């Protein structure tokens, strides 16, 4: 009972070089992505792109000395981006297969997934333990740190051994993860060597993975070099935003916001601003406050119409300054200009005014002209 995926898988098998990959020929008729069929879960290693890249990587790693064919800037940057993308793909693939393994192996050993969270380590441990019931017989040296080994051996589980078919699937999936991990290491090695050629100092400074990401996000070495320092900081920010949009985190944020909206309204004026006192603060206030001159301008002599620099009706009044008061008034420049303009335009008005009554002043005008 071969399913169609098997046939396709076989054809890709033929294209392969020296890469080992998982080729679990499942008899399952379930083609949808469920955790019964390893092939539907782990498709990456069958894609042509992956195989091509891995071939390139392998070739380059074998003839290490020959890097001069990377003369073209664009080609290098493109290669870096591809390697980045590939390693990200491998990562997500590892996670998927890890979930697959967990879904089967938790029937056997439930606590293992919390004791050994890392996917690659988990796969190795699962492979070593297999269907063994007595954990003391299993040798986990070198796979895990010793305290983890003790925790694993010490834990008593309620799981039962797996049926033969499931066990085979699980072990195959573990092999899959291990080969993916190997592939990823190869890609990273390759990336390091490229970076060592393209931007060796950058790679040494921040590490090859970070350097690769920087170059990828910036869009090539010339682009990265041209950026001012502030922009370089922002390169990483994009990643942060994407991380924030991961569904669980996003959902939490949304829920928090909704909760805030549903709260009753706050009591007004309940939060009093901290007004500070003291000599220093009051001096600061006075710098922007009302000056003595302005205070005098604001005050008006009782019973007398206010003097102003243009006329009694126009212009800004002097208040207690100027003729009514005892201070000498020096007009600001803009006012002086206005005076010139005004006297030219309205000089006849002066003549008219002294006799006629206007809306604003009384018919008896008390001005300098009258000698007051």
């Amino acid at each position, binding site marked *: 009972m071969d399913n169609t995926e098997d046939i396709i898988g076989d054809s890709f098998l033929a294209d392969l070089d020296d890469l080992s990959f998982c080729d679990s020929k499942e008899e399952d008729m379930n083609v949808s992505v469920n955790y019964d069929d390893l092939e539907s879960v782990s498709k990456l290693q069958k894609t042509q792109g992956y195989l091509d890249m891995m071939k390139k990587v392998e070739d380059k790693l074998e003839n290490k000395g020959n890097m001069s064919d990377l003369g073209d800037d664009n080609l290098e940057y493109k290669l870096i981006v591809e390697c980045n993308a590939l390693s990200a793909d491998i990562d997500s693939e590892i996670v998927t297969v890890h979930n697959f393994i967990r879904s089967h192996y938790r029937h056997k050993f439930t606590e293992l997934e919390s004791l050994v969270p890392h996917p690659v380590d988990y796969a190795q441990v699962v492979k070593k333990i297999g269907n063994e019931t007595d954990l003391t017989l299993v040798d986990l040296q070198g796979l895990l740190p010793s305290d983890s080994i003790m925790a694993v051996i010490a834990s008593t589980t309620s799981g039962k051994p797996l049926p033969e078919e499931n066990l085979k699937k699980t072990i195959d999936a573990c092999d899959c993860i291990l080969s993916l991990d190997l592939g990823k290491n190869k890609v990273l090695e390759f990336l390091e060597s490229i970076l060592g050629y393209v931007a060796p100092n950058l790679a040494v400074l921040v590490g090859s993975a970070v350097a690769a990401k920087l170059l990828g996000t910036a869009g090539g070495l010339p682009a990265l070099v041209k950026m001012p320092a502030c922009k370089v900081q922002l390169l990483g920010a994009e990643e942060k935003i994407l991380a924030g949009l991961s569904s669980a985190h996003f959902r939490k944020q949304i829920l928090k916001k909704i909760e805030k909206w549903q709260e*009753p*309204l*706050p009591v*007004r*004026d309940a939060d009093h601003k901290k007004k500070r006192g003291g000599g220093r603060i009051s001096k600061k206030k006075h710098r922007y406050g009302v000056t003595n001159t302005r205070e005098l301008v604001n005050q008006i002599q009782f019973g007398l119409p206010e003097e102003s620099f243009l006329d009694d009706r126009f212009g800004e009044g002097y208040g207690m300054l100027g003729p009514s008061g005892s201070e000498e008034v020096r007009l600001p420049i803009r006012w002086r200009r206005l005076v010139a303009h005004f006297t030219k335009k309205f000089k006849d008005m002066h003549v008219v005014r002294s006799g006629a009554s206007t809306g604003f002043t009384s018919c008896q005008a008390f001005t300098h002209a009258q000698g007051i």
Partner: protein
Amino acid sequence: MRLTKKKEVDSVIRDTIDKVLVLRFGKASDLVCLQLDDILEKSVREVSKFASMALVDIESEDVQVYVKYFDITLLSSTIFFFNAHHMKMDSGTADHTKWIGAFQRKQDFIDVVEAIYRGAMKGKLIVTCPLPPERIPRFQLIFKDV
């Protein structure tokens, strides 16, 4: 909170401390009253930190004392209290002691309650209505048998 007895009204007025008490006098079957009640109910939680509400049925026998005291007539009237003081609001209508009619929007009601709260916290006994005159319901006083 629905109140039907004078004692209940008394206790509610006395026991609401440091919060505006919104006391609606009206008939639950009246259209305007229903509108008003709808707005009140929608905002009860939102203003819960500085106001609380109660509905009084003017048809009940017990509370006729209050109906007479506040001179409440056919339409629903809302009376505001703060710490057992009767708060008046000048909204441009003839009667400052109460709010007659419904509110057009929930936000209008919340604004009114906030104005009352602010004035009360400052120690005032009468506040001005923050709503523009278009949104204040006006009614004509028709004197019967005068």
